[in-house]
């Protein structure tokens, strides 16, 4: 099990929890992103995720390094799913382990906020009556204001 992955396989959180945890950790915070059945008044039927995989892996690794600088000693694992996802399936799973809960919660939140900013993955939404590519943030890993906004949200 690798700590960072982009995969078409069904995601599982438990192996990530085991991977990041050790006897010095008093806390593991986790996040699961799920495909929901609605978005801005649209009845969503499924999603298809596209990724520039080698670059997505590098961006995820960068995010984990950033988190380690903000919360030294935190151990992270993050897997992102690609391909066809049905309603209710997990699109991303994150586990963050630390000696204390505050760093674990913050690092976990930071990872999902940064994923939405700089990881080259795209959501193709299929809904009743049509389809649309979802376009969120213009990815710029050098944008320090965006990174600090992710830190602020992580610590909110």
């Amino acid at each position, binding site marked *: 099990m690798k700590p960072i992955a982009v995969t078409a396989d069904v995601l599982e959180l438990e192996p990530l929890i085991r991977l990041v945890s050790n006897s010095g950790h008093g806390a593991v915070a986790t996040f699961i992103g799920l495909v929901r059945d609605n978005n801005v008044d649209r009845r969503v039927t499924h999603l298809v995720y596209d990724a*520039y995989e*080698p670059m997505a892996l*590098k961006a995820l690794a960068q995010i984990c390094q950033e988190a380690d600088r903000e919360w030294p000693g935190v151990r992270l694992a993050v897997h992102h799913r690609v391909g066809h996802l049905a309603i209710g399936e997990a*699109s991303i799973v994150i586990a963050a382990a630390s000696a204390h809960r505050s760093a674990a919660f913050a690092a976990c939140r930071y990872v999902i906020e940064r994923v939405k900013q*700089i*990881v*080259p993955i795209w959501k193709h939404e299929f809904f009743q009556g049509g389809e649309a590519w979802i376009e969120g943030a213009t990815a710029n890993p050098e944008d320090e204001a965006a990174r600090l906004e992710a830190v602020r949200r992580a610590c909110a």
Partner: protein
Amino acid sequence: MRVTVRLFARLRDIAGTGDLSREAQAGATVRDVWQGLVTEFPEMARYESSISSAVNADYARMTAGVSDGDEIAFLPPVSGG
């Protein structure tokens, strides 16, 4: 020289493929490659201010130079998670 162009999401839909091979002049930049694409696929023009670009799977500025055999990627705004 020749470069590989990788396109994703809506940009791939516009081009009809995610993988193109294009000729580039010596001294060309990522922006030159992009402008060639916009000439070929005018619908891409509206992404001018929102795309990110990469050379060989590392983020790169539009002013970065390209070399023979490079893989140049254009990334619409991302929506992972």
